[in-house]
């Protein structure tokens, strides 16, 4: 086993150090440190506009930080070329806030899209794999529908099936339950837990949905003004005397 492979095996799936990002005068991330262990789900909580989604986009290389470091399984991703980033991205699945399904493609084609280009599969194998993935998220009946013909909750399910298509080691969820009714939100929580249980995937869930964060997380981190204010279990958060955390947990009361 090479030194590099050993490092990758022992390194945490996601490690973020002193991450800073500003848009003009506005500091969005101001020295964020995070680490996610193998098979662990970390929820990042915070008010809207505190840089949670920017954090995810930097982790996956869609945006570049002003400074700091992001390591995926021990490999630094900041400043990588497009080709090197592509290799890293094969290990990461991303569920977007609005699912971001390709609206000109059917449900089946959406899930098949990354497999067609990177899966090295025959047509028959690919079709079988797509059906398996859609069955995992309970969408095997709607193969031929367009994204506009299915509900928001169903779009999230298809988005999740597409995110896990390349069997990633890491999953990033950007507001997975935003805009969903409580029952559908709970179903999405169930799927996130299922991913962790069946595939041992390390995940970051960015959300401001407290019940959802409590249901899916091993650990929670509260963000405020571009910094991590507190990290710990839900019990740690409840016991915190910090005014912002107390206010956040009590829905601003």
């Amino acid at each position, binding site marked *: 086993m090479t030194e590099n492979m050993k490092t990758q095996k022992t390194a945490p799936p996601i490690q973020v150090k002193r991450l800073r*990002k*500003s*848009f*003009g*005068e506005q500091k969005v991330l101001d020295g964020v440190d995070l680490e996610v262990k193998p098979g662990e789900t970390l929820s990042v909580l915070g008010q809207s506009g505190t840089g949670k989604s920017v954090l995810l*986009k930097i982790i*996956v*290389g*869609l*945006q*570049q930080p*002003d400074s700091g470091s992001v390591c995926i399984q021990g490999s630094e991703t900041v400043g990588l070329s*497009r080709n090197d980033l*592509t*290799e890293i*991205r*094969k290990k*990461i699945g*991303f569920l*977007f*806030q*609005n699912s*971001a*399904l*390709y*609206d000109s493609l059917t449900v089946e084609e959406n899930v098949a*899209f*990354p497999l067609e*280009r*990177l899966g090295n599969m025959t047509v028959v194998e690919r079709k079988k794999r797509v059906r398996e993935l859609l069955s995992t998220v309970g969408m095997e009946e709607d193969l031929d529908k367009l994204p506009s013909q299915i509900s928001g909750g169903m779009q999230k399910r298809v988005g999740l099936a*597409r995110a896990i*298509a*390349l069997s990633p080691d890491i999953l990033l969820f950007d507001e997975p339950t935003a805009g969903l009714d409580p029952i559908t939100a709970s179903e999405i929580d169930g799927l996130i837990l299922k991913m962790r249980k069946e595939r041992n995937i390390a995940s970051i869930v960015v959300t401001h949905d407290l019940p959802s964060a409590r249901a899916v997380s091993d650990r929670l981190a509260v963000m405020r003004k571009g910094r991590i204010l507190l990290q710990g279990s839900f019990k740690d958060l409840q016991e915190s005397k910090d005014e912002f955390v107390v206010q956040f947990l009590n829905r601003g009361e």
Partner: protein
Amino acid sequence: MSLSATADLNAGRKTGLSAIPNSLFHSFEWFGELGSFCFQLARAVFSLPYEGKEFAHQLDELGSKSLPLVALAGGATGVVLSLETHDTLVHFGARSLLPALLVVSIIKESGPIITALIVSGRVAAGIGAELGAMKVTEQIDAMEVSAVDPYKFLVATRVLACVLMLPLLTLIADFCGVFFGWVTNTLTQHISFTLFITDGFKNVTFSDFLPSTFKTAAFGLIIGLVACFQGFRARGGTEGVERAATSSVVLSSLFIILADVLLVRLIQVLFP
């Protein structure tokens, strides 16, 4: 250009460069981003694997579906040229020159520029709106994180389809222009199509026909490049999509007219 880089520019404006108007900064910024976009496009075009299925789809979408509009515009141009020049030529007793005048004006200028402007209106708006909508709904980001290169799948296929289809569509416009020019002419005084074509093409050489037709490949490059670029720059919901679609048409039409001036002069120098 990233938001932080834009912020640096803003800072520059505030400190020592306040005399330079904002529009000039925006122009530099636009051309800088376009240069980077062209680099990404070149990388996507010259690297394997190719998106053959999507390219074929774009050939149909951008080329075949523009055909009726281009044929109609070409035909109308032939009719108008025939009507406008007929009386003047008759007045000077040079009616026999009408086929040659019509053919030369259509194949050297009217056909190519009308085709490019019609395709610019139809295709650039479509690409700008489609890619703009994909950008603001994060579909392009989703493609990136799926480890699929959007420059390869979305940009290279559309730009190459435009480059390939423009000369072919120009041939259709040229044919329709000449044919309907003959129809208009023969309605006033009968002349056989064979005689009209023989007269019309008597003094036309390949150096008249080929450069004028193939210069439209450059127009296709402008349409595809500008429309994809404006689509990728879309920000801020439906308003951003509308801006991307409008600016795609306006800028590509403007650049086509400017490029035409340069290319006509270049063709005159290279094919005297």
